[in-house]
């Protein structure tokens, strides 16, 4: 029983830190609100979908960055898609990096794009780790209010 409570508390804390540390924004809450009895793992499903889309896009961007000269339009396009996905789950920091990247594309700044891309990948990895850990504990804790509520 206590373990359960502890887990629940842990989930709440981890969730809170996702917001506090700026990993996710309000859109994440929107996802949580869509979660219900008929879709009990909705948020996780969406995030998993996001990983899949992201992997593909990141790989494409990487390939495009290896071209010479850089096709900024294409890069911008790809990053725009990635940005869209990221915003769908509320991935705040990742989205910010995408925007930065986009600006570099517009400015034709290849170096800027490279740097931005690296930062974006780091943020993405960090987010992914955080989310995976969070969902794992959440699953262990079992059904509970995902909204930030104290037990």
């Amino acid at each position, binding site marked *: 029983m206590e373990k359960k409570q502890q887990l629940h508390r842990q989930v709440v804390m981890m969730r809170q830190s996702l917001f506090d540390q700026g990993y996710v924004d309000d*859109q994440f809450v*929107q*996802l949580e*609100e*869509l979660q219900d009895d008929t*879709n009990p793992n*909705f948020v996780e*499903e*969406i995030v998993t*979908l*996001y990983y*899949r*889309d992201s992997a593909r896009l990141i790989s494409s961007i990487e390939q495009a960055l290896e071209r010479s000269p850089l096709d900024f339009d294409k890069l911008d*396009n790809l990053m*725009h*898609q990635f*940005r*869209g*996905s990221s*915003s*769908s*789950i*509320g991935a705040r920091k990742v989205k910010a990096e995408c925007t930065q990247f986009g600006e570099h594309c517009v400015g034709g700044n290849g170096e800027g794009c490279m740097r931005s891309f690296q930062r974006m990948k780091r943020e993405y990895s960090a987010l992914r780790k955080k989310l995976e850990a969070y969902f794992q504990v959440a699953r262990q804790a079992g059904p509970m209010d995902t909204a930030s509520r104290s037990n």
Partner: protein
Amino acid sequence: MTVEGNGRGGVGMRDEGGRDKFPTGMRVLAVDDDSTFLKVLEKMLRDCKYHVTTTNDGATALRLLRENRKSFDLVMSDVQMPEIDGFKLLETVVFEMDLPVIMLSSYGDTKLVMRGVYHGASDYLVKPVRMEELKNIWQHVIRKNFNSKLKNDCPNLDKVNDREVGVVGNMAASGDLPGKLTKRRKEQNEDDEDEDSEDGGQENEEPSSQKKPRVVWSVELHQKFINAVNQLGLEKAVPKKILDIMNVEGITRENVASHLQKYRMYLKKARGFASESKDPSYIRLASLDKYGEFQTLTGSGRLSSNSSLPSYSAIGMLGTFNPPSYLGLQGNASSGVSSPNYLQTLNSSFTKAGKLQEVSLPANQGSSIFQGVPTTLNFNNIINSSIKVTGNNLDMGSSPNGLQNSVYSGMSSHVFTQGSQLQPQNASSVEVTASASWQGVTRYSNFPSATLNQHTSTNLRGNFNLTSPDTCDNLIDFSSTGAISGTLEDSRRDIECDGGLIDNVVRHVNYGLSQHGKDRHRNYKQISSSTSALVPANGASGSVSQRMTQNGTAVYSGVPDVSVIPEQSNLSGVHHHSSVEVSYIDHMTKCNDLSSLEHMKPQGSIYNANYESFDELMNAVIKRDHNRETMLMDGDMLFDASQLGSCI
């Protein structure tokens, strides 16, 4: 009473027996290459109780739609997709399938939104999309059906219009039209009762072609037409010669013929008004043919006695080429716009019914200019539509104003009422509606309202004098509109507006009240500019007139006419219709029949208030809760046909 608000008819709910539950079960097709977003959207739409189909691929979407046109009520699509051009898809769905389309995009910048509007989008949502935004998307379906229904009320006119509408694509391609002024076909197809007759009519008139694209009589095109007619002389103007002079590709002699017929009818009406008035401006009005007015006039025929809604749609339809007969002028041809003067005419319209509702009916009112003045004009539209006013749009001198403009004035009430439609989000949802209904007009209200609000208030402030009954000065209010549009310019400079309709409206209003003073005219320029500005906003409507209608009419409706109304004693009828109008009337005419205000829609708290100034009203409108306003506009207005009807 036409649409009862549950999208009957064209919504397609009939089959599922879910008609009464609309918007529950509304069938949405969502297209986006972003699977993550699509899944979220799907869940959200399901939570809204819509029936959802999704696809990543535009080609699949088109296939699904073509397989059965009636299998969906609404389409939502991303505009930036790799495999297929989102805007092309948008256009295809809008024109070929005649379904409302909501654009989705991560970008909310003005240019894109504008483009969407031009391509026919009913709305524009910026990702990530929130639930609140999806809760009201059903309105686009209703609006479309509504306009369609209005059209169907006057099938003859409709057929002519429909036939003429459609070559826009060609015209746009040939560069004749600014942007893609393609007009969405009315949802005739979806209205069973008229489908056959519509098709039959079309076929009869153009036996050589099957589904000929409709000709959209854009402002430019109409201007060419007018020039040709003037060159030939109205008496001698024959379609063949007009066609030759116009020298435009894509239109046939038949197109010109039917347009000429309508034009003649319009002139007859206009002249009927003007000839009785000693005011030269009236006569000038009559002889001038501002496209918008003309359209209004032709559209007015649609205002049948069926519902008060037509009046709304009429207004809305001002923007559209197939204007709903909100003006009711056409229909009134027989009823006799015989009143000696404009005011009287209006007055009689009102007095007859005591409610604008009747007035709006062409059959009842010979001259009810107010007919079809949708009360729900989108002030927001005007405000929100970031339309650049180009210099030539302000050319008031050249654009003829017709009495029809007065109709627009009626619509200005919409402007106000729609004020509340402004959404706080930045361009989060731009509702572009091809349908001319007032609802459509309100769509623009979703433009970044923040900026506009400020502008609006400021602009309006100085101009409204709602204190005196014969304040034709109220027309000046338009100038404030103009001011607003000026402000709009700041934010959006992409759209070129032919400004025909709006100019007309403005001018019309001014002329109409010219008896009250000449200095109003100076306000026209402003107004016209504003209207011009507004016009582009309605790109979705496909034709300049449409655009203007949505924006311009909103602006104009109601106020100027209202000022006219003061002369009449029976203003109470007016009060019932549009809260905005009523307030204006109230202010302007000092007709303190506030009790009538109480009859205003329950939610219309704004309307019930006795605003001291337009500015106040606007502020109040702007402050209104969006949803509530929507309800008021869409729900209340829509379903309260009587009140709607009265809103002229």
